[in-house]
């Protein structure tokens, strides 16, 4: 029971891998199956163009997890590095970097990502770029706060007096001790990214038709909610199960690793 979050997450990753390896024909149109309800050979029914919903869901989770992976790798690397530099050097460097993060934090939620995705133009790469531009701040703030106190620890001072280089101190002596809170932060951030990706594609700013994404499917599903409620329900419940699993995993990691907010 306790492990259900990992099971759900693993199932979605497996589904994404399956969609990547086998061509499930997510874009195949069947005109006689438009908005068909779930039935024998079409487990989740079909959408407004008669495309099967299940393969499109799997193709959508593949996009979603790919975006999450790329954005997390980029923003964690950038954010953690900036945070370490800021916390290690302090002074002017720290003040400037924190001022910059303050400006980014002045834009609530995914507002800035929406704005950047809008001006950059729709498409998967621009969506990833927009999310990268705006998601590094959390990592930078957390790392900086932790590094600031870490700087005064004896083992860091010892390494310093032994003449260890600054990158060595940062990445060998400080970073490993920050791993637990950063892992928890990364987990919550990933849940946020799943929602962010879906939000942007819901607004038509993500991956373009005919390719499937959860946000765009939800938008179409809402349009046909009255005649084909199974469409929006299938996508909505899928999205919810993934976000819930990642969030609960974050809570469990936080408790297990004893990280305080």
């Amino acid at each position: 029971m306790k492990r259900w979050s990992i099971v759900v997450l693993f199932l979605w990753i497996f589904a994404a891998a399956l969609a990547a390896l086998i061509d499930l024909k997510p874009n195949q149109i069947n005109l006689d199956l438009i908005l068909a309800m779930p039935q024998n050979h079409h487990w989740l029914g079909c959408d407004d163009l008669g495309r099967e919903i299940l393969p499109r869901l799997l193709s959508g989770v593949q996009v979603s997890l790919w975006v999450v992976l790329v954005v997390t790798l980029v923003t964690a690397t950038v954010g953690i590095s900036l945070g370490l530099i800021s916390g290690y050097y302090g002074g002017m460097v720290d003040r400037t970097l924190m001022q910059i993060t303050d400006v980014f934090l002045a834009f609530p939620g995914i507002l800035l990502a929406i704005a950047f995705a809008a001006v950059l133009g729709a498409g998967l790469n621009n969506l990833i770029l927009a999310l990268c531009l705006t998601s590094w701040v959390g990592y930078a703030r957390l790392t900086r706060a932790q590094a600031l106190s870490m700087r005064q620890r004896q083992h860091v001072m010892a390494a310093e007096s032994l003449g260890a280089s600054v990158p060595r101190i940062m990445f060998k002596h400080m970073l490993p001790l920050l791993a637990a809170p950063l892992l928890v932060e990364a987990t919550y951030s990933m849940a946020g990214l799943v929602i962010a990706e879906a939000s942007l594609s819901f607004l038509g700013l993500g991956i373009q038709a005919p390719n499937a994404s959860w946000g765009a499917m939800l938008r179409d599903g809402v349009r046909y909610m009255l005649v084909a409620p199974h469409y929006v329900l299938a996508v909505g419940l899928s999205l919810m199960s993934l976000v819930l699993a990642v969030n609960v995993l974050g809570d469990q990691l936080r408790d297990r690793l004893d990280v305080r907010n």
Partner: protein
Amino acid sequence: MLKRLLGTIPVIFGVLLLTFVLVHSIPGDPVEVMLGESATSADREVLRQNLGLDEPLPIQFFQYVAKVAQGDLGVSIHSKKPIVDLLAERLPATMKLAALALMIAISIGVPLGIVAALKVDRWADNLATVLSLTVSAMPHFWLGPLLMMVFALWLGFLPVSGMDANTSIILPALTLGFGLAAILTRMTRASMLEVLHEDFIRTARAKGLPEKIVILKHALRAALLPIVTVLGLQLGSLLAGTVITETVFAWDGIGRLLVESIEKRDYPVTQACVLVIALTYVFVNLLTDIIYTRIDPRVRFSS
């Protein structure tokens, strides 16, 4: 206090810089992108001049800041109206929606959090936790349609979308409010749990005060502080949430204006909407800090 006020100046400056960069990060010629290929070269020249694109970038930025300071946010490419007027038309609708959502969130989140804290690890607490976790995992573009499906399509006693009926506001407000209520429930629970272990609560109980007074007057007041901070920060996500929620429910506020401007490539309007939402958020956070010092004497006297 003064320091806090002065501290917002660089942030506002940075927000202006970032919204300025936004329009300049349009790939290619912004005029081309905004007007499309069918525009005449005269039209293009007019827009180029209106946007001040002929000047060097630093000068353009200072012109932008000077204009914003005078309350001039430019002209919409699509409707040719001053953007300030467009915003003024839409702002009341968003404010009404946000205010109602906030009230819903507080009237659900705080009581539920208190009950969860009082019945810790009992079924009421577990139910509150499961509810708030589930709702937290529901983005507005999923919760909104779900509420729409249940209350408007199946039960049929609320309008699906639009702003025609008085009851039109209920579903979008619930959509925004539930999300915030979920966060508020968890926050109130955690904050109450911490306070309930304090000595002054034991004293209040030992004095023989009725439990109602102990909880509502002594404990809740102390637990309120972190809740106010979270509320201030979360108002931002409420503002950001209006973008999607207003789009789902065809509610003519700033959020929908933003999405419409993106669809029409009316980027000066996009820029102005983003700027206004961000500045509102900065202002709300400043206000939260001020309220915080008012309700917590410790903060007031130590500074």
